[in-house]
């Protein structure tokens, strides 16, 4: 259930060259149950709200951690008006042991909460970073994560091995490239795995969200179940069901 609430910025930290991490004390206890996949719409001064992506909780300090690229700078003590949670939590398939997270030429933030949670659940996690995703400061990630760097934006080393190894794959790229980047992967997978299990290949859509409630139709994704708002039914969709944007 989406709610309007407030948070106080407790701490801001620079991560590597281009990212920042904010520690947020949230007012609404319901937000402490926010799940990987879900986001918050923050009023940051522009007319429309900005999608703030939690990457985890700092349970010692009792704060939610938000990461995004540097840009506007925030001051500790600032109060931010939030709407959320927005979106459906990522659904990990039953019995997943090997999780593959693929970020093609895009900011990896949308997958980091899932990454941290999977590590906690003792899954084996491989993270693929290509294009600008390579700029993410991977030193901040848990050392148990296997990181694969791809120099081509659209593919990565040992692609077939990783795809065969994985029990589930999350793909993240710029929404407008989803079609041309996801289709070749489906093709590759169809040769590796004759029958793709349902939900095996998840595509994550990170787009601007004016409303976060499914009302505005700005974030629609075309699927075989009709046009679905990424802010309600996403951000992740089974790639085999997509008709894309």
């Amino acid at each position: 259930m989406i709610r309007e609430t407030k948070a106080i910025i407790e701490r801001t930290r620079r991560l590597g060259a281009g990212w920042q991490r904010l520690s947020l004390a949230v007012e609404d206890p319901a937000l402490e149950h926010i799940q990987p996949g879900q986001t918050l719409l923050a009023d940051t001064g522009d007319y429309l709200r900005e999608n703030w992506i939690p990457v985890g909780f700092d349970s010692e300090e009792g704060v939610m951690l938000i990461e995004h690229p540097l840009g506007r700078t925030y001051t500790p003590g600032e109060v931010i008006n939030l709407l959320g949670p927005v979106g459906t939590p990522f659904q990990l398939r039953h019995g997943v042991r090997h999780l593959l997270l693929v970020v093609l030429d895009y900011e990896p933030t949308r997958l980091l909460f899932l990454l941290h949670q999977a590590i906690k659940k003792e899954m084996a996690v491989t993270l693929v970073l290509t294009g600008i995703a390579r700029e993410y400061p991977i030193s901040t990630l848990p050392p148990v994560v296997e990181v694969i760097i791809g120099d081509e934006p659209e593919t990565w080393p040992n692609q077939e091995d990783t795809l065969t190894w994985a029990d589930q794959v999350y793909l993240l790229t710029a929404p407008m490239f989803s079609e041309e980047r996801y289709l070749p992967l489906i093709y590759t997978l169809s040769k590796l795995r004759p029958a793709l299990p349902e939900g095996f290949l998840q595509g994550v859509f990170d787009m601007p969200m004016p409303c976060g409630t499914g009302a505005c139709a700005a974030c629609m994704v075309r699927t075989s179940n009709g046009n679905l708002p990424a802010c309600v039914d996403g951000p992740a969709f089974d790639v085999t069901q997509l008709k894309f944007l």
Partner: protein
Amino acid sequence: MIEITRPGKYSLMIENPVMIASGMMGFDPMVYRSLLKIEKLGAIVTSAVSLRPRGSARGPRLVNYRGGFLLHTGLPNAGVKRVIKKYSPIWVDSPVPILVHLIASDTNDVMYSAEALEGAAGVAGIELGLHDEATPAQVGQLIEAARKRCQLPLLVKLPLYHARYLAQAAEDAGADALVVASPPRGTERDAQSGRLVGGRVYGPWLKAQVLRAVGQLVPHAAIPVIACGGIHSADDARDYVDAGATAVQIDTLTWTHPSQVEIIARNLGGLELTRRMGALADEWEPGIGKTRLMSSYPPNLPEFPFGDDDTSTDP
């Protein structure tokens, strides 16, 4: 109670002059229950329906810019019958009247859609959305088509640029109220893709353009005028009421600050509006619209707020 339609057969009364504009709460306004007390609102207009299903627009469709944004949705909907099937059970339970926004594309489509809506439970009225290129003759035909097999109150939403040009035709053809206005279209560059995107433009700055159109229409209109455009405060809503609007519709504030919408509705709820335009609000909260200076303002200066500034000079 405020009568937002012409009195008579197809009359619609609402309890608060503050409505939600089409598209702002989608088809299931109950989602907004956790964000504001929707029972404080006067009425809610749904997103647009068409006879046949429509898909989403493709490619970039939102440009966030300059204190507002441009949005291009394609008016996606599952088609009037499937929309009714899915949402009518929700509308039936709504604490406030639900009006369905119908795309005025083609007379036959409009006739069959209106017929379907007539039979749907929980639909308190229809808001017919004219496209930007409609002519007065088309407007007449579309409204007559909607009326043919449908007894619901019929509001007609006019495009901003042609609101004055189309108002008379809408009124003559039997519209029960005029909604002024659909936002204008624009073109802006999407920074991410570098592409030009066309769509409607929204922002608080819309209000001045729409307030002028409302002020121009009201003295000529024999039916209620409902104002829609850029309301972001109770003052904005009051300015429209002051200009003769019978009710107002809140647009994108619903997305950016839903709690503020409730505040506006509570604020305007204090107003006891008489039947329609021309009637000034009984109540004008001191310190809100009326300033200290205003009360002692020299009365000898001309005021032409809705006219052409070129005429209000004195060489």
